[in-house]
């Protein structure tokens, strides 16, 4: 018994010591290996600030300025870690829901995928292509707007034309709102991608924020050599990633499965459903799902290719993958198309004149609304095609198409049924806009914000008053030379005006009485922006209070002449007011804002600060 026990004990001890020595051997082997590995060069992490801002959808500042413009996002941070509303940051044109609530806002498109929140974007080029390990965005004011970060395989600084451009989503999230407007460094966990990149794209959504978000710099961290897969977790294959495949939009030629030869002809109980019901069910699917469904069986193929499913088509969420081929495949289904959104698509050669014109020729006949914001593939020929193929077009959005030649805009005057025209940040010139206003007399909504090539806005205002009497909203943000004469003519002629944006128009002087005249002439006024017009005074506010009971949004940023008393009168007389921006109004300090907010809790009173 004792011998068995001692043998057992001996064996256990031996085993333990042996594993110990084995462990030692292992560690020594590991040491040898690591010693060898230490000789190999370690992958150095490169940290870069953006070299150049390549493209963006909007900004607050003026063209050719460095205040509140998107070009501030390149280079080293100027403000961070301070917080506040500073000129050296990149600021987008809008925030919150205020612009969505206006009459000039476009209707939302159906079938918008749930994960797509982006409202604005900015593309940044960096010096060296790297495999990204981290992206940090320095937000210095009201952070939380970033909803997507994407990386591109194309090097924007190379001389070669772009071929096989791939965009990969590094991170996507919901729009958020941080509790305090303080600066923060936003560094989400990004996906690791298989190609080096020096072109990043940030997409933002500021709809939950209380004021303009401001960005200071973007840092891209990455490694030059392709990292070992073993060092990183394998990416989790997400079902939604399946939609990242490039095939589903182009591969919708609708070939049937081999089962076509199957003897079973019915689809079971599905056949018993009325046609309209299946159509109703399908109307809830997003476009890629619809295209996938078309490949399942003959019945569903017929349903999914029914033009009635394609009366509204928004291709903006799929901007990264849209090509001439995709448009070609969708062409046959879009004969009843009424509303088309191609915003943000077609960059870097993805869409060309031939693809676009083919699509428009097939589908333009009943087109009523065409959104072409930031479509850099557009040229004069494209606009000519639009004017020829879309006889009933009522809404046209060419916002930020800043590469369009001024000559191209002449063709818009052929669209005589136009009701909504957005030309924000385009190069349209005087003759073209006057020609458009002469022929497009049905205009209800016109956006000429930051159109710097228009020489004389007084003449434009005069033409509007003469020809477009049904005008409901007018955006003249940063129009440099509108004077009280032009404004007086405008408000005398366009009596139906509900929205008027005269922000940063320096040549309007309150002493001429133009704002008082405006208030008396526009009883339906709901939105008035007099941002940074330093001459707005108490009498103007009192006239607004007396004459504009429907007023909802008012921005009088930066005037020293408005007192708390007249604001109180305004808020009392205009019960519908929801937005009042009194930032940098020296007589309206935080105490006044608190007092007014207490008295009028339904009003969002905005007071920006610089520290």
């Amino acid at each position, binding site marked *: 018994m004792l011998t068995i026990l001692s043998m057992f004990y001996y064996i256990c001890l031996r085993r333990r010591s042996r594993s110990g020595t084995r462990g030692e051997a292992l560690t020594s082997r590991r040491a040898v290996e690591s010693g060898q590995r230490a000789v190999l060069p370690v992958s150095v992490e490169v940290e870069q600030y953006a070299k150049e801002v390549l493209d963006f959808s909007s900004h607050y500042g003026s063209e050719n300025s460095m205040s509140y413009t998107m070009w501030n996002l390149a280079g080293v941070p100027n403000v961070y870690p301070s917080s506040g509303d500073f000129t050296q940051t990149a600021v987008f044109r809008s925030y919150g829901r205020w612009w969505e609530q206006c009459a000039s806002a476009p209707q939302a498109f159906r079938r918008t995928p749930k994960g797509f929140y982006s409202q604005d974007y900015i593309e940044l080029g960096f010096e060296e292509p790297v495999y990204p390990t981290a992206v940090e965005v320095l937000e210095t004011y009201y952070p939380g707007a970033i909803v997507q970060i994407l990386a591109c395989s194309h090097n924007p600084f190379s001389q070669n034309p772009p071929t096989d451009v791939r965009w990969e989503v590094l991170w996507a999230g919901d729009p958020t709102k941080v509790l305090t407007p303080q600066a923060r460094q936003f560094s989400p966990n990004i996906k690791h991608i298989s190609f080096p990149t020096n072109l990043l794209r940030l997409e933002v959504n500021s709809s939950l924020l209380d004021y303009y978000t401001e960005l200071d710099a973007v840092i891209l961290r990455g490694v030059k050599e392709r990292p070992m897969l073993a060092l990183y977790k394998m990416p989790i294959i997400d079902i939604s990633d399946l939609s990242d495949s490039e095939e589903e939009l182009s591969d919708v030629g609708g070939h049937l499965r081999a089962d076509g030869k199957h003897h079973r002809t019915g689809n079971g109980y599905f056949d018993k459903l009325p046609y309209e019901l299946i159509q109703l069910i399908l109307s809830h699917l997003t476009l890629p799902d619809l295209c996938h469904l078309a490949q399942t069986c003959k019945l569903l193929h017929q349903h999914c290719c029914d033009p009635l499913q394609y009366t509204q088509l928004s291709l903006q969420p799929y901007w990264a993958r849209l090509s001439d081929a995709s448009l070609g495949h969708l062409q046959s289904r879009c004969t009843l198309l009424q509303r088309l959104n191609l915003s943000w698509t077609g960059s870097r050669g993805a869409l060309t004149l031939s693809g676009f014109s083919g699509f428009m020729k097939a589908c333009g006949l009943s087109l009523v609304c065409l959104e072409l914001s930031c479509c850099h593939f557009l040229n004069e020929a494209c606009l000519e095609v639009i004017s020829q193929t879309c006889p009933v077009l009522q809404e046209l959005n060419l916002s930020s198409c800043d590469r369009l030649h001024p000559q191209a805009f002449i063709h818009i005057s052929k669209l005589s049924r136009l009701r909504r025209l957005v030309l924000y940040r385009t190069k349209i010139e005087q003759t073209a806009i006057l020609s458009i206003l002469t022929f497009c007399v049905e205009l209800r909504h016109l956006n000429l914000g930051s159109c710097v090539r228009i020489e004389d806005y007084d003449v434009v205002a005069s033409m509007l008053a003469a020809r477009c009497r049904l005008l409901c909203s007018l955006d003249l943000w940063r129009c440099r030379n509108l004077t009280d004469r032009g404004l007086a003519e405008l408000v005398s002629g366009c009596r139906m005006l509900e929205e008027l944006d005269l922000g940063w128009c*320096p040549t309007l002087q309150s002493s001429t009485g133009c704002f008082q005249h405006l208030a008396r002439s526009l009883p339906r006024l709901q939105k008035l922006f007099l941002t940074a017009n330093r001459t707005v005074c108490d009498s103007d506010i009192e006239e607004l209070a007396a004459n504009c009971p429907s007023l909802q949004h008012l921005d009088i940023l930066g005037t020293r002449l408005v007192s708390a008393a007249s604001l109180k009168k305004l808020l009392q007389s205009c019960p519908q007011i929801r937005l009042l921006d009194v930032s940098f109004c020296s007589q309206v300090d935080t105490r006044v804002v608190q007092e007014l907010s207490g008295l009028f809790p339904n009003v969002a009173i905005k007071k920006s600060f610089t520290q």
Partner: protein
Amino acid sequence: MLSVLSYGRLVARAVIGGLSQTDSRDYSLVTASCGFGKDFRKGIRKKGMCYGDDACFIARHRSADVLGVADGVGGWRDYGVDPSQFSGTLMKTCERLVKEGRFVPSSPVGVLTTSYYELLQNKVPLLGSSTACIVILDRQSHRLHTANLGDSGFLVVREGEVVHRSDEQQHYFNTPFQLSIAPPGAEGAVLSDSPDAADSSTFDVQLGDIILTATDGLFDNMPDYMILQELKKLKNTNYESIQQTARSIAEQAHVLAYDPNYMSPFAQFACDNGLNVRGGKPDDITVLLSIVAEYTD
């Protein structure tokens, strides 16, 4: 025989050396700043590059070195406006323009114009006015481009003598040309000169040239010969000696400004115009002292 050959070689080398005047090295400015604000109560504290209502900046870009001074007009204080805000923001904006390369080295007036336009793009309603003097050294062409609006200015000293100086721009006594942003309604009452009204000049500089850029606080209290005397003490081109000399000039001017019996250039000018005054002129003093040296990274 041999000596003739070697002599000939020496002569040839000298001739060729004399013919090829072009110096392909890049120049740059080594600059130091010093100054004193007028108001004793605030203490002589330096808020960045601001001395009282004066402000200045020093900036570099790939192709040029740029300096600037601005003298905020003190009269705004009576209307509740802080005069240092305008001059300080103007100089900071010029500095930012230069750092981002949004300027042409041969056009310092362009720097002023763009900077003034940017001030109007600020959400904050700036008020005030100031003079301005911008000096740009184009590194490759060795040319100094200057623009001066108002009574600040610069001197270029070569081998102990003033070879270039700026002219004062005055509308009338003690009212220099000035860039300004007026409150609405007061545009008629407030003097506002366009940046185009600035005097510009361009000239070549050589290695070792000393450029002194300063506000009128210096020139009104120290005549040229005193400045030149101080500059004689500058032996090397390193930053520390320049800083020391700049400091001594500024200090001397500061002391003289409060000397009631000293016949300052300001008092001299007043006497020439019929005003019987004596003594220095208490004012904010800003001095930027630069030496043209070879460009090193």
